[in-house]
C-alpha cells in the first residue's frame, strides 16, 4: 500500500500543485483545509477585485475533485486563537514584533495538524512551502533553502526537528514558482493564476496596530517617546504601534531622521535615535531549536527577518533554550520577537526568537 500523506491545502496554487505532485508520485493523498481564523474561509472577493463568489476552500475542493482524492475541512480555530493570535497580540503589547507564520508552523501545521494526520494513519504531512528536506547517508535529515531563492520559506520552518522532518514533505522545494504555475495550468487547476497572498492571514487589511487594539482594548500601553538622553520628545497611543527600526509615524520633529531604538514595555517608553545608534553587535535568542545536533558553539549566517540576506556570526548555545549570537561585524537594527535563523550555506541549522539586541 502506498504511503498516505495529508496535504494542507489553502486553496492557493502552491499547495494545490504540491497535492498534484504527490498524486503523481503515487502517494495516497488526503487534502485538508484548515479553518484557522474566526471568519475562515476568507472570501476571495474581499481580497480580489474580480467577481468570484467561491472562496479559497472551494478552490481547494475543486482541485481535490479534479485529482480525485478525499478532501476535508478541519476546524483548528480554537488552537489558532490560543496559540497564534493570542501570542501575536501579547507580543505586540510587550513591545515585540512577532512572526505569526513561524508560530503557526510550530504550533499548528506541524503539531496540531500532525496529530490529525496521525489519527488518519498518515505517514506524512505535506505543505506547499518552498523549502527542501534531504536525508543523508547516515539517515540524518537536512532542511535546506528552496531551489527558487526568491520564494524560499525556510526561514519560517527552523522549528522542525528531526522527528518532524522525517514525517514532512515539501514537494515544491526543488521547483521555481514559474514552474509551479506552469504545472497548475497544465493540470487545469482553477487557481493556476491566482495572486499570491502576502498578508498575515488573520489581519487581512495588514493593519496590525488596529488588530491589536481591537483584540485587547484594555491592555494598550500609551507612553512617552524619548530620546537617548531620556528627554521626552512626544507621546504615543500604544507601544504595539512600534517596531525596532521604524522611522515613520513617530510624530517627532528632529534635525536628523530618528528611528525606534528600544521599546520599554514596563514604562511604555519608546526610545528613538539616529540610525547609527541602532547598530548591534549581536543578540540573545530564546526558544531555540536545532534541526540537527551541533556543538555548543558554531559559526553560521543568521537571518533576522524574512528575506534578510544573512550576516556571518558565531552562535553559542546557553541554558534554558537560549543562544547568544555575536555578529562578526556589528549589524543593523535587531527586532525582538522576530526569528533569528541559523544557516550554513543553504542549510537551516536551527533558530530561535530574538529576545534582545546586544549593543555596545
Amino acid at each position, binding site marked *: 500500500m502506498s504511503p498516505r500523506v495529508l496535504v494542507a491545502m489553502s486553496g492557493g496554487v502552491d499547495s494545490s500543485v504540491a497535492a498534484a505532485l504527490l498524486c503523481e508520485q503515487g502517494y495516497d493523498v*488526503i487534502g485538508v*483545509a484548515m*479553518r484557522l481564523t474566526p471568519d*475562515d*474561509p476568507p472570501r476571495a472577493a474581499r481580497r480580489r477585485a474580480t467577481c468570484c463568489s467561491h*472562496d479559497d*476552500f*472551494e478552490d481547494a*475542493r475543486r482541485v481535490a475533485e479534479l485529482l480525485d482524492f*478525499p*478532501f*476535508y*475541512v*478541519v*476546524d483548528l480555530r480554537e*488552537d489558532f486563537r490560543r496559540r497564534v493570535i493570542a501570542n501575536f497580540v501579547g507580543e505586540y503589547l510587550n513591545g515585540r514584533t512577532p512572526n505569526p507564520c513561524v508560530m503557526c508552523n510550530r504550533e499548528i501545521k506541524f503539531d496540531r495538524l500532525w*496529530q*490529525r494526520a*496521525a*489519527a*488518519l*494513519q498518515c505517514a506524512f504531512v505535506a505543505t506547499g512551502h518552498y523549502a527542501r528536506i534531504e536525508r543523508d547517508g547516515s539517515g540524518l535529515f537536512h532542511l535546506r533553502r528552496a531551489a527558487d531563492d526568491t520564494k524560499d520559506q525556510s526561514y519560517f520552518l527552523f522549528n522542525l526537528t528531526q522527528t518532524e522532518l522525517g514525517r514532512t514533505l515539501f514537494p515544491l522545494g526543488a521547483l521555481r514558482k514559474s514552474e509551479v504555475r506552469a504545472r497548475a495550468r497544465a493540470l487545469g487547476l482553477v487557481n493556476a493564476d491566482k495572486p499570491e497572498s502576502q498578508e498575515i492571514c488573520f489581519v487581512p487589511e495588514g493593519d496590525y496596530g488596529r488588530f491589536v487594539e481591537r483584540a485587547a482594548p484594555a491592555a494598550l500601553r500609551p507612553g512617552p517617546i524619548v530620546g537617548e538622553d531620556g528627554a521626552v520628545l512626544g507621546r504615543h497611543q500604544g507601544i504595539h504601534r512600534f517596531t525596532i527600526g521604524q522611522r515613520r509615524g513617530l510624530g517627532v520633529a528632529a534635525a536628523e531622521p530618528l528611528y525606534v531604538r528600544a521599546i520599554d514595555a514596563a514604562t511604555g517608553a519608546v526610545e528613538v535615535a539616529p540610525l547609527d545608534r541602532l547598530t548591534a553587535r549581536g543578540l540573545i535568542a530564546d526558544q531555540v531549536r536545532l534541526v540537527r545536533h551541533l556543538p555548543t558553539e558554531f559559526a553560521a549566517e543568521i537571518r533576522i527577518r524574512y528575506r534578510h540576506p544573512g550576516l556571518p556570526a558565531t552562535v553559542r548555545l546557553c541554558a534554558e533554550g537560549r543562544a547568544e549570537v555575536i555578529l562578526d561585524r556589528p549589524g543593523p537594527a535587531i527586532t525582538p520577537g522576530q526569528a533569528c535563523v541559523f544557516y550554513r550555506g543553504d542549510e537551516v541549522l536551527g533558530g530561535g526568537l530574538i529576545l534582545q539586541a546586544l549593543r555596545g
Partner: protein
Amino acid sequence: MRIYLDSNAGARLRPAAAHAMAEFFRAESAHGNPASIHRAGQRARRELERARAAVAALIEAPPRALVFTSGGTEANNLAVIGAARAASRRRIITSTIEHSSLLAPVAELEQRGFEIIRVAPDGDGVIDADAVAEQIDTDTALVTLGLANAEVGTIQEVAPIAAAARRCGACFHLDAAQAAGRIPVVVDRLGCDLMTLSAHKLGGPPGIGALYVRPGTILAPLILGGPQETGLRAGTPNLPGAVGFGCAAEEALRSLDAESRQLDALSRTLLRRLREGIPGLRLNGPMERRLPNTLNLTFPDVLGETLLMALDLEGVEVSMGSACAAGAVEPSHVLIAMGRSTDAARSSLRLSLDWSTTAEEVGRAAEIITRVWRRVAACEPRHEVRP
C-alpha cells in the same frame, strides 16, 4: 464495500424508485407537460397524479391536499412564510431544535416584526407539548415543529399542541421529513394543518418533496406564476422526481412495519455492539420514542470531526452536526439546546440507517467504528476534549 450510515441526510434510492424513473424516461410521456391540453400533457398529468396519490397515501391524506415542492426545505419555507403571510396574527411558536429550513424562515419573520416563541427541549430532545400548548393564543398564526428530530431522532408528542392550535384557530405545521416512511404518520391522527415530506429521506430521489395542506387552510404561495399545484406552487412540477417519490412512498408504506422493526433491531444491535467496545459511549436522545434508524452518539476522548474523517477513509459514512458552506462541521445546535457542552457536541456523530442496511453491515460497522475510535482516541491530545 462502503457502509452508508447517513440516511437522515439522504437515504439510498430504492431500486423500485430508480426503476420507475428509468421507465418514465423511456416512455413517451417523458416530454409532456402536465399543464398541457393535448394527449402528451394528459399522460404526464396522469403520472403526476398517480404519484401524488401514492405520496398522499403514506400519510393518509386526500391526494388533492398535497403540493409538490423542490424538497423538504421548500415545503418548510412554504409552510412558515406562506402561513404567516396569509394570517393577520403576529405570533409564531417553534422550538430551538428545528432544522435550519424551519429556523431560517422563522428568523426572517422575526426580522419582519413577528413575535417568535422558541421552546427549548429537555435533555433527551423532548419538547414539552403542554408547554407549547400553553403558549398558543388567539394571536398565534403558526405553530411549527419537527415531528421527529433529524439529528437525535426524538419523536415529539403533539396531541395537546394540535388541540390547543385548533381551539385558538392557529395553523399547526409538522415537519415530518425524517418521520415519514420510518414510523406511522397519519395527518388526521396528528391533527396538523400542514406537513412537510421529503422524498430522499424515505428512499426516493433528491430534489422533490411535498407539503400537505389541510383543505381549508389558507397559505400564500412563495413561487408565483402559473396555476400549478392548486395555485400554491407555480412552475412545472418535477415529474420524474414525483414518479420516484410516489414509488418510494408506496414501497415505504407497504413495508413500514417490517422496515421499522428491522431498523429498530439493527440500531439496537449497533448501539449494543458499540457500547461493548467503547466505554463511556453516550446515546443522545431517548431510547424509546426515537426514530428506529437514528443513533446520535457522543464518543469519549475524540473529536467527532477527526473520527468522521477517519471512518470515511475506512469506508464508513456518518455525519456530524451540520456542515457549513465550506464543508467544515459546526457543533450541533440540537445537542447544545439539549444541554450538552460544546465539547460534547464536537465529540458526537450521527449514525442513521435506512431500508437497505443489513445486519452484516451493522456488524462490520460496529467493528470498524470501535477499532477506528480506539486509534483516533490514542492520537488525540486528551486535554483538547472535555466531553
